[in-house]
């Protein structure tokens, strides 16, 4: 069996239409800004192509009829367990800051922020 054969298990042959997102355009600059990733112009074009293909793939799910279906946020489908209000931690800043990029007097340092 050739490797190529295995690659073609794509669902795209049977992929239903996804009218909602026809011609989806991806604003990589905007997304990268939200995600705080410095992405150069060269990389940006490739990423746009990649994201387009991924979004195309995920859009195949739009065909599923979900009328009246409640979202499932969690496989356990149960509710929160709460903890007692007790102080159980006594953190040592030196311990936690031993690998920090920049600290002084127990503070973490970043370039000056102007508010």
């Amino acid at each position: 069996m050739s490797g190529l054969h295995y690659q073609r298990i794509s669902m795209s042959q049977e992929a239903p239409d996804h009218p909602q997102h026809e011609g989806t355009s991806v604003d990589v600059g905007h997304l990268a800004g939200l995600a705080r990733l410095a992405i150069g112009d060269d990389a940006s074009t490739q990423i746009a192509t990649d994201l387009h293909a991924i979004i195309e793939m995920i859009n195949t799910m739009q065909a599923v009829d979900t009328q009246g279906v409640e979202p499932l946020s969690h496989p356990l489908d149960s509710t929160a367990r709460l903890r007692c209000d007790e102080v159980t931690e006594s953190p040592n800043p030196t311990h936690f800051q031993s690998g920090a990029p920049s600290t002084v007097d127990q503070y973490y340092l970043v370039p000056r922020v102007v508010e």
Partner: protein
Amino acid sequence: MNWEAVIGLEIHVQLATKSKIFSGASTAYGASPNAQACNIDLGLPGVLPVLNEKAVEMAVRFGLAIGAQINRYSIFDRKNYFYADLPKGYQISQFETPVVGEGTITITPENGKPRRVGITRAHLEEDAGKSVHDLYPGMTAVDLNRTGTPLLEIVSEPDMRTAQEASAYFRQIHTLVRYIGICDGNLAEGSMRCDANVSVRPTGQSEFGERTEIKNINSFRFVEQAIEYEVARQIDVLESGGRIERETRLYDPDKDETRSMRSKELSNDYRYFPDPDLLPLSISEELIERIRSDLPELPDARQERYTSTLGLTDSDATAISNDIDRANYFDACLAAGADPKQSANWMMGELSAYLNKHDVTLSETPIAPELLAQLIARIDDDTLSSKTAKTLFDALWTAGASGNVDALIESLNLAQLSDDGALTQIIDDLIAANPKQFDELRGGKDKMLGFFVGQVMKATQGKANPQQVNQIIRDKL
């Protein structure tokens, strides 16, 4: 043109839990930098949040106190944005389903009439850390001790029309959260902060104008000043033909002005979604009932009881009911049998003066409500005059918990002289010594009655019962 301001407040109340909302680190104020930030607060790789039950109970307590609906099922969401003092790059908050739904609160602005302000919702969230900008040149220092302190964000309806109303609302929330014991109310330590949404519109117009948000105001005075400045600024802009931009502004108390905040401009797409590390919060009917039965009588209800049932003046009733310690002290006086009006008078008069003078709070007062009630009882039964009562009060203050009202009256010889025979003897002696004055009195010069009463009091070192003295003299005429 006449303008009207439209104001809504978002108040962040730090809940008085011992540990943080999602970790077991302490919430105590004032530790050295990052000494109260555990691995969960620091957002280290792999850590997970577990919700503090006390924070939930406190939120429910607030909800019940404002007559709000408590959502039986609520969700914690991630609010995504980057900031130096937000370790995970998201804040765990509640977006679509807060714990507390709609409620109301009554405010009384200074020189205004009481009015109701709608509360849209109140939700639980975690506090961020602190950025310190002026400690190291060119750098911002980040202290994450505050990270994860539980916050209740109380969002009002845009129901306020003046800066004074906004300030009164802030005060009323302050009163209430201290009343129900969910916040220490310490504004200087940042236990309560508020954001104000402000817009203006021509009087009579029903649509709202574009609003701005003033962030992080931490005093009653600053709320008023910041809003006053911002309202005036917006009117200026509009009257000179400009437009209001929706933006976040910061109030600078030193310059008494608001200015645009650059650091908040970058992201307004918070990409809220349910935090997959936390399951939905379910609040049982039993829990709600337990909390309800545990709530103190609230300020509004007490105010009503004090005025209409007990007959206190509005101002005394307000002053007492607005402070949980005062209200409890007052109620304890009543429980010990004291007269309501006298109790209020003594509390707002002598007691309050002594507390001020000695710089102690009511919870530290050496005069327990039962002692004050006994003192009042001795006035009622004519053992004490108003003058000797004050002497006794002073003695009680000094004696503290060991003070015994009757023993002190005895040892200080404060009881009124009510013996008819003894008083008649003193009065007869005075008449004999002052025949001219007695004649004048007899001739209708009523002022002379005061003279004789005064002489009797002098002779008895103030212990004579003035009414009784009056009566005996009148009988002589």
